């Protein structure tokens, strides 16, 4: 028998009862749903289609940036292929909803109403897309055990490119259930996801409700992770791998886990993106341009800061909506912004801290000065 550890001994003294914990979980879940309903019905009714569109885009961007922050911010690895995971989730989820809509409803049109069979299939497909992306994250995370810094960046970049090329090789999209049923094996393998033409007519289930709900879930997940023992262990890897290992942190395991968590949410974000009005998925969605945008949000917000990444995601989305006429010049501005951050505020807006820690600190310092 192993001796009782000091930690176990003390934990036994402060164990909260099950009822309270269950209540806490329930309240948190309901709060997420309530917030999503509020955004959907109250805020949604006050704004026009242009602002709604920006809110949807911003929500998806928050999910992407906050999740990439788990890898680049918490564990201090450098992934520049986040869009690859996003594309995996987007294509998997879109494939599920599109073909199941053809089969069940005879049309790719989304069913109306906030809660319908179609929208539940959509929610489930987002989770499946997330899981598929997490699986890809596991595969990419494995080499990251040995690689660091620039080398890992190249692997993740390569992953995005591989996804792009594989998607280009997919079969042409099928446009009716009859056509799908009649399809030969050759037309179904590789799956009919549109190839270079892109994947179109995806049912438009993405609404403020679903985006807000998944944003809330992502934020709760990330905050609780950061403030947990696992989260501290991830941050310790970023600070000093040798010391982290010496203190008993299994750094290989945690690096892979970080990759899987991040790619899961990237996949979910991709699913939400895919089901937006007017989206046609293209293999280039997996490419570097989008990965770069997500990376900038994380660096701008401060590596490790969840609220920083979320705020930067919103800022960038609004800015790019206002600069839509600039077209490709946007990328130049992004690059310029990144360089300026690196020079003038290398830690990003908030560094590793959260917004309230930064502003709380300022306030307290002023109070002391007075």
């Amino acid at each position, binding site marked *: 028998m192993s001796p009782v*550890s*000091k*930690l*176990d001994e*003390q*934990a*036994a*003294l*402060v*164990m*909260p*009862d*099950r009822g*309270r*914990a269950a209540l*806490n*979980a329930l309240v*948190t879940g309901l709060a997420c749903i309530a917030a999503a309903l509020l955004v959907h019905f109250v805020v949604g009714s006050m704004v026009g289609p242009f602002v709604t569109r920006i809110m949807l885009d911003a929500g998806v961007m928050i999910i992407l940036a906050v999740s990439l922050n788990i890898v680049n911010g918490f564990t201090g690895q450098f992934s520049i292929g986040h869009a690859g995971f996003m594309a995996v989730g987007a294509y998997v989820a879109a494939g599920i909803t599109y073909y199941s809509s053809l089969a069940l409803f005879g049309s790719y049109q989304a069913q109306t109403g906030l809660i319908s069979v179609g929208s539940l299939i959509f929610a489930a497909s987002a989770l499946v897309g997330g899981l598929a992306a997490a699986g890809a994250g596991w595969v990419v995370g494995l080499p990251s055990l040995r690689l660091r810094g620039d080398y890992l960046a190249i692997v993740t970049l390569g992953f995005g490119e591989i996804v792009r090329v594989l998607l280009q090789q997919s079969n042409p999209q099928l446009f009716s259930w009859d056509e799908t049923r009649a399809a030969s094996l050759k037309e179904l393998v590789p799956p009919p996801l549109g190839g270079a033409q892109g994947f179109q007519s995806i049912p438009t289930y993405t609404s403020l409700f679903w985006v807000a709900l998944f944003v809330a879930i992502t934020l*709760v*997940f990330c905050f*609780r*992770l950061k403030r*947990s*023992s*696992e989260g*501290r*262990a991830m*941050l*310790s890897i970023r*600070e*000093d791998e*040798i*010391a*982290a*290992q*010496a*203190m*008993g*942190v*299994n*750094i290989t395991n945690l690096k892979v886990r970080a990759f899987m968590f991040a790619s899961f949410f990237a996949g979910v974000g991709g699913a939400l993106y895919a089901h937006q009005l007017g989206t046609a998925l293209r293999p280039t969605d997996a490419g570097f341009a989008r990965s770069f945008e997500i990376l900038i949000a994380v660096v701008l917000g401060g590596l*490790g800061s969840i609220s920083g990444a979320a705020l930067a995601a919103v800022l960038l989305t609004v800015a790019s909506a206002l600069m839509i006429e600039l077209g490709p010049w946007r990328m130049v501005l992004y690059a310029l912004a990144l360089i300026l951050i690196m020079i003038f505020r290398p830690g990003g807006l908030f*560094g*590793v801290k959260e917004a309230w820690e930064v502003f709380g600190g300022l306030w307290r310092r002023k109070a002391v000065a007075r």
Partner: protein
Amino acid sequence: MSRPILDIEKIAIAFGGLKAVQDFTLRLPTGGLYGLIGPNGAGKTTVFNLLTGVYTPQAGTIAVDGTRVEGTRPHEIAAQGLSRTFQNIRLFGLLSVVDNVMLGCHVRGRHGLAGTILHSPRHVAQERAMRRRAMELLSLFDLASAAGEQAKNLSYGDQRRVEICRALATEPKVLLLDEPAAGMNPQEKKELQALIRSLRDRFGVSILLIEHDMGVVMDICERITVLDYGETIAEGTPTEIQRNPKVIEAYLGTEAA
């Protein structure tokens, strides 16, 4: 004699042609406080790196409380009960002092994703217990008031003591201290000496200490091993070591050079 808590048998490593450590043998009894000394570059830190799995020994065996650990990964060795501090302090600079010490508790915790995200009772209790334990340790070192500071903002001496706290938080059987008095003033050194002695009594931890300050080593260590150019040139009580001609020569030799 009962089984030693740390049993090192003829471990060795060479970096290219440089034999950094050869045939190093040491038996640390439970509750022992032993010293490891030697001139600069003698291989002392390399011994610690071999023990904690930073390097894998090319020969020899290491057993912690009867369990062989050579060749296993650093975090597994920590879980077996070997913890250390670093000569060139390696705190998690951007994390708060209390988070640094709580990280030490990580290895004794149990972690599940669902529990972490859903705040299961066990998870909440464990987090509270970690914070409590970390604060207890910090109070013991008079560092409780600095708990919220980022570790990098502390003074050198305080950082060294936070490192000891963090190492103790892993609930080690054996604590390896690499030059804990370096950079401290005489007053701090005196306090540190008393503290190291009390650690053993309070935590039941056995200690192996690397230290350049002979005053500190001779005063608190029961037995001392002397390394020079990777080889063990002497082993014995402080009095024996002080009289040993080989040791005197090794130290005078480096001073003369």
